């Protein structure tokens, strides 16, 4: 290869001018600015105002950090964040363990047809409209005619009043979330497992008959990036989680399933206290930005 060709990508004659990228980027960036950034700035401004649209006579005066102070001293806000964290640490281990088991079953050689079928069906929960997952949950966990209680009775347990007791409602949304998102973990782990070079895996299989040793020493390194992705993306998803829980429980009974997005929605659109709700949303956005930074830092190294 000649010297000139090797240096080609960095040579000034790239076939385009300095501003060419801008023309291609401008439509998308301007649109996103208008519908994403501008409203965010508007929310930021609103968060410094008293803004209750059911009382327009009082106007929307600037009140400094009053909304932030009231949010940060509001025990409901904190308990809702805490509940969201509790939900995350409950669903994540279940989804990771089940997802790994599923991925290993799908990675294991043999059973071609059944395996392809199982692989394809994993997509179904992921595509199911989140609100419809909530509707299905209402049907399955109904106290009187729900099939969940029928399964319990097969196992010799009495009926549970799922959706009107705090523990039952929390368990019900956990189960539906596990149903919907375990396939996501499974597919990511499966992708990780298929990255293990075939020769290495076969050699290891000959050397040891222990599946656990194989998993720990050979496959684990290939699973870790996927695990990081799952942990970060699921945390963002749980902070976003609204549709399914809203349909199933509306955050109730009491505040048993009042996850953060549900709570902010209620403050904004039931109480119409948009100043406070905006302050809460901005705080949520800050948490999200930290999480996204983490995601980029850990998984997009090559782009940087």
């Amino acid at each position, binding site marked *: 290869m000649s010297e000139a060709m090797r240096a080609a990508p960095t040579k000034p004659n790239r076939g385009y001018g300095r501003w060419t990228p801008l023309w291609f980027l401008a439509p998308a960036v301007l649109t996103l600015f208008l519908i994403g950034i501008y409203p965010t700035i508007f929310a930021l401004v609103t968060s410094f105002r008293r803004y209750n649209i059911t009382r327009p006579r009082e106007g929307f005066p600037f009140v400094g950090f009053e909304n932030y102070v009231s949010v940060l001293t509001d025990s409901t806000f904190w308990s809702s964040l805490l509940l969201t964290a509790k939900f995350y640490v409950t669903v994540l281990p279940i989804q990771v363990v089940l997802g790994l088991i599923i991925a290993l079953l799908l990675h294991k050689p043999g059973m071609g047809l059944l395996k392809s079928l*199982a692989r394809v069906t994993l997509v179904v929960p992921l595509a199911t409209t989140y609100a419809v997952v909530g509707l299905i949950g209402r049907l399955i966990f109904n106290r009187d005619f729900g099939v969940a209680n029928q399964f319990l009775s097969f196992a010799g347990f009495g009926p549970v009043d799922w959706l009107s007791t705090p523990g039952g409602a929390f368990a019900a949304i956990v189960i539906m979330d596990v149903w919907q998102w375990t396939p996501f973990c499974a597919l990511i782990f499966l992708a990780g497992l298929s990255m293990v070079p075939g020769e290495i895996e076969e050699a290891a299989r000959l050397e040891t008959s222990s599946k656990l040793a194989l998993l720990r020493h050979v496959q684990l390194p290939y699973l870790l990036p996927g695990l990081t992705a799952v942990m970060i993306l699921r945390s*963002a998803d749980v902070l*976003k989680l609204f549709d399914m829980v809203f349909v199933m429980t509306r955050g109730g009974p009491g505040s048993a399933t009042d996850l953060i997005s549900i709570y902010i929605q209620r403050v904004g659109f039931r109480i119409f206290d948009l100043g406070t709700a905006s302050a809460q949303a901005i705080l949520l956005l800050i948490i999200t930005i930290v999480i996204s930074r983490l995601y980029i830092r850990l998984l997009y190294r090559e782009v940087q």
Partner: protein
Amino acid sequence: MRGKILHAIGLTAIVVFTLFPFVWMVMASFKTQSDILASPPVWFFTPTLQNYVDIFADTKVSGAIVNSLIVATLSTLLSVVLGTPAAFALARYDFRGKSDLWFWFISNRMTSPIVLALPVYLLAMYANLLDTHLVLILIYLTFNIPIVVWIVTDQFKSIPPDLEQAARLDGADQFTIFRKIYLPLGAPGIAVSAIFSFIFSWNELLYALVLTRRNVQTAPVVATSFMSGYELPWGKIMATGTVIVLPVTIFALIVSRHMVRGLTMGATK
């Protein structure tokens, strides 16, 4: 032999686990109200099409499905038109702020819709845009443009640069290269990203709930609205649910190989 049986049982368990809630909904959509309310639940019953007849006669449901179609289709088209040139720039050029741009696109995947729903509600109220298709089409671009950009960027990067060199020697400018080389060769990625946009728009509830009233209610909003009052029409609810989920499930099966890429923004391949 024992291993094989266990493997088969495990795989069957996966199929049952992933399909059961879905199948249970479809079954309920073919049940009469009294079969649905039977306690304990019945597994074998005489199917009826009455629920489907009812929902398609109900202009509220059919209108909502039309609304969903309009919003999802137009938002998808717009995001492809706006997103593919951006993907071309990200795939082919180096420029300052590129990684910041990536970061911004990816943050959109992470952000809770409630963050934007509050200000957009107020802005749409002042602009008299509440309860219009337009406001939903535009707000759905916040997650559709990023998905188009990152899937199509990936696809564009895989197109060999030699093709471009040849075209450049023939005097083609960048726009011609984009149109004549990248768009046709990137078509599979563009199609996949369009399907994802459609699925996400079709499934969206929070924005639709907040930004629409009577006229532009989408299918998930209407399905949810059945859930109030006494004596819920379970059969109709489940039939509506089935009608909503079926098209996106078919789409998702088409792009099933790309599902992980679509949901992780390409961090794991």
